[in-house]
């Protein structure tokens, strides 16, 4: 039997610190009462209320449109960027610049994008959020695919050429399939980041068509209702699923 070590205590406290708020949120979403101050018993009524709410449904739809579009665009751009960086440059600076949007503070990107859109007199709406999310999505996809590329034997592409394949054939038949797990992981990451992104969406959204996080924000201004707890719990479930799937895939990748 393993001896209890006192080192488990700070570890446990850290986990408590990290996850207690989330646990409270999830528990409260099943609270029958309409305030967080008392517990009236288990109830799923708030979930029903949530689906009846038109603003929430529209926000969810907008969010899905933005996330799907941004994921598609950033997956293509990010993959090409990663392959281009790995195969055709030796510049560490270009490398760093390519993934910078992933680590820049959201607020910087948000202000920058808004200033840019204003400067080129771009009308704001779902499309402007979609493009904004593509910016950081591309950086994340590029970073993940780049990691995958580092694990792929560079001579695979030479072998393909040696066996008579043209450069485009090699890209489609060898490069893409060997990167596939990384590409899928990157896409899942971009999707889950886009779904709950608030700051950039808030800055680049038009007057109509708010995304779900913006809808939530406007609801919260009148106090946190259990309805919002229910919504947050659902978002949490979706994000968790995607992040875990992305991690699984990238681990699978390394064993290949």
């Amino acid at each position: 039997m393993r001896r209890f070590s006192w080192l488990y205590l700070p570890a446990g406290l850290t986990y408590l610190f990290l996850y207690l708020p989330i646990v409270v949120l999830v528990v409260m979403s099943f609270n029958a009462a309409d305030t967080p101050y008392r517990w009236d018993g288990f109830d799923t009524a708030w979930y029903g209320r949530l689906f009846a709410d038109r603003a929430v449904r529209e926000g969810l739809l907008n969010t899905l449109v933005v996330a799907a579009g941004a994921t598609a665009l950033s997956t293509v751009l990010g993959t090409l960027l990663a392959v281009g960086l790995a195969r055709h440059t030796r510049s560490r600076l270009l490398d760093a610049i390519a993934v910078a949007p992933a680590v820049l503070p959201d607020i910087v990107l948000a202000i920058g994008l808004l200033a840019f859109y204003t400067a080129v007199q771009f009308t704001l709406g779902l499309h402007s959020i979609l493009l904004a999310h593509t910016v950081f999505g591309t950086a994340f996809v590029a970073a993940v695919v780049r990691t995958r590329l580092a694990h792929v034997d560079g001579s695979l592409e030479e072998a393909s050429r040696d066996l008579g394949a043209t450069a485009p054939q090699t890209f489609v038949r060898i490069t893409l399939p060997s990167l596939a797990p990384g590409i899928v992981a990157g896409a899942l990451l971009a999707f889950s980041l886009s779904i709950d992104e608030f700051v950039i969406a808030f800055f680049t959204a038009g007057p109509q068509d708010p995304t779900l996080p913006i809808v939530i924000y406007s609801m919260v201004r009148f106090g946190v209702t259990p309805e919002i707890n229910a919504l947050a719990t659902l978002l949490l479930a979706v994000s968790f699923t995607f992040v875990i799937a992305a991690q699984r895939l990238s681990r699978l990748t390394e064993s290949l």
Partner: protein
Amino acid sequence: MSQPRTGEPLVSIRSVSRRFGDVEALQQVSLEIRQGEFFALLGPSGCGKTTLLRILAGFEQPDSGSVTLDGADLLAVAPHRRPVNLMFQSYALFPHLSVAKNIAYGLERERRPRNEIRERVDEVLATVGLTGLARRRPHQLSGGQRQRVALARAIVKRPRLLLLDEPLSALDKKVRAEMQLELKRLQHEVGITFVVVTHDQEEAMSLADRIAVLNEGRVRQVDAPVPLYERPGDLFVADFIGANNLITGVLTSDGLRVPDVGVLPCPAAPDRVGATATLAVRPERVRLGADGGLAGVVRDVTFFGGTTRVAVEVPGLDRPLLATVAGATAVALGDETRVDWPGADVVLLDGPDR
């Protein structure tokens, strides 16, 4: 299906040079590779052998010089159009494709009819002894099996020239010996000209019909294994191929004068009297316990089963003399003994320049 051992020249490499920054990877390299032969490019790492291989495959271009295959300029042909295939050191098997799909890849690029592809894949799988593993993925195979797949994938296209980059280096010792025989058998069977790159001189000696020894981007000697061993052309080759006793001195009319040691027997070279030269004598030519010769003390005895190698320290020589004797030997560590060798068994080499 075996072809003549020495055929027409297949590949002619003329004055090929390639530099990477400050490093001259290849300097004025000229070689002829004959139709149907098993040719080895041998040298220490960094000698340029891999660069030459990559030039033949088309992944590198030389700075100057020409390469022809069957008399036609090879350098003008893109890598995917050359009748040349390369077996990569890492094997470079496509991890997402089955064994059969890996092998069929090259034939599919040629747009061969589907049943021809299937037939040729089955045939080559039988040739390399992998029938039954067609549906496996590369990661489900052992090292030796992967190598066979890589080989099958390269020969199924029936190239004019097959290049092998350190083909046995990734295998453990036992599988290596097995594959060595296998490679030789295959080369006879398919009749393709093989060029193997290796840093392992035993591998080159046992595989190849002819060996080019490279060092620092230059070809030092091209010869069959036996003459290469018995008649090394220069000091580098004498030292690199097999074990050798190298002793430097000044030539006189009756031998090689070595300071503090005396005059050692070597072939007469009346026209080079007074020149600095090095005599090379193989350990198996050195006689132990002779009457004359040099006196020394046994410093090391290594028993290999069939033979024993004895290191004898001779005063005045900077390296102990190695002698290989058959079976076990009567001498023991610390014994005083005498060594000598017949002058006719010595190879006399120029230099080293001082």
